């Protein structure tokens, strides 16, 4: 009979290296948050471009979206980190390269999310704003955007979870994120099952927390139900309205 070696799971490694692993997760989330903020604005920009009346701008935007939606994160970061340095002689830090690579990819997804959300806002809303004599910018900012964001936020949350996971490929440029840390601990102890299971668990925990946070953000934009977060944020306004109602009834 074949002699199977006794498997020794060194689960204690997870606890021993807890601060290193958590630090890796924090790095991954840091990069993702920077990229989230950038992608939000770049994506919105491309969404507006795609809805422009000028065919040239629409074409430019859809080309951008279709190219970057199709590129894997690994390729994107190698491009940005090594490619940019070879072509232009400028070296990004690994952190910068990670943020730029993610932004390039995710702003294209965001552009599509925003486009569909903006188009979902009823045409009558813009008409009503215009009929009241509100400027186009004001109509967009105060009427269309808040309604579109409510539609877009759940998708943005899913995208953000995807961003955190995609940082795992940034190991190739030596960014000290979770997989990079896991690999270096593994190199010493050769416990891939234990260590990568721990890494996976941390990603899942992060996904739960992110989901919870985005639900809280979504609740601020939801109506007519008023979430506690929204009630807190609008407490002064509600107090004024309460006074006005009493004064006028």
């Amino acid at each position, binding site marked *: 009979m074949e002699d199977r070696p006794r498997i020794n799971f060194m689960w204690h490694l997870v606890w021993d290296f807890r601060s290193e692993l958590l630090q890796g997760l924090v790095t991954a989330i840091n990069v993702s948050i920077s990229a989230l903020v950038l992608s939000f604005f770049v994506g919105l920009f491309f969404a507006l471009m795609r809805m422009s009346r000028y065919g040239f701008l629409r074409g430019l935007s859809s080309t951008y979206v279709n190219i970057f939606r199709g590129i894997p994160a690994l390729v994107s970061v190698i491009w940005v980190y090594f490619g940019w340095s070879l072509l232009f002689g400028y070296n990004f830090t690994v952190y910068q390269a990670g943020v730029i690579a993610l932004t390039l990819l995710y702003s294209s997804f965001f552009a599509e999310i925003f486009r569909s959300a903006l188009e979902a806002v009823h045409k009558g809303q813009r*008409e009503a704003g215009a009929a009241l004599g509100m400027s186009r910018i004001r109509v967009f900012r105060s009427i269309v955007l808040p309604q579109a964001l409510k539609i877009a936020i759940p998708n943005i949350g899913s995208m953000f979870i995807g961003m955190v996971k995609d940082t795992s490929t940034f190991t190739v440029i030596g960014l000290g994120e979770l997989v990079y840390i896991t690999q270096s601990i593994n190199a010493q102890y050769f416990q891939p099952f234990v260590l990568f299971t721990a890494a996976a668990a941390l990603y899942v925990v992060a996904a739960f927390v992110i989901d919870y946070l985005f639900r809280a953000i979504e609740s601020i934009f939801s109506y007519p139900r008023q979430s506690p977060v929204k009630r807190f944020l609008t407490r002064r306004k509600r107090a004024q309205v309460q006074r006005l109602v009493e004064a006028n009834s």
Partner: protein
Amino acid sequence: MNLLEEPTEGSVIFEGIEYGPGVSDSKPKRGKALDLRRQVGMVFQQFNLFPHLSAIDNIALAVHSVTGKSKEEARERAALELKKVGLIKWAMNHPAQLSGGQQQRVAIARALSLDPKLMLFDEPTSALDPELVGEVLAVMRQLAETGMTMVVVTHEMGFAKEVGDQCIFMEDGYIVASGGADFFDTCTNERARQFIGSVL
């Protein structure tokens, strides 16, 4: 009439200023659409309230962004307008929490909050339950009594007969018949008589 639909030709003259492209070959428009819209209130068939804002904020947003008043002042004005249409108790409700008739009254209050010189009503009661038509017409009648100039597109012939000073009967985009306050009694146009007869 407030240039939401951009006219291909012809123009609207309001308070001595001409808006729109004018009759072909004439001078281009002289007034900006935005300036016209700020003087002309509009009420839509589908209300078009902003669903993400409470009744009072629907009005306050318009006041704040068009007149430049502070948000607090805008809310004070909004409260006054809501009181006039009898909805001050519903100030905090969102459009989804109001009946159709209430929504339309908020929409009227919203248009009035900007002190328009003219009010346009685009079939204001067509999307309403028959039961709720009355409350909206009551608000409009009240408004007419204050001397507001109103242009009302409506199928409510009873209301038009009672309130209208000038009546125009339209079909397929053309004016078929027109007349003054006594239009309903004196109109001789066959098609208009037929319509009035079938609705009144």
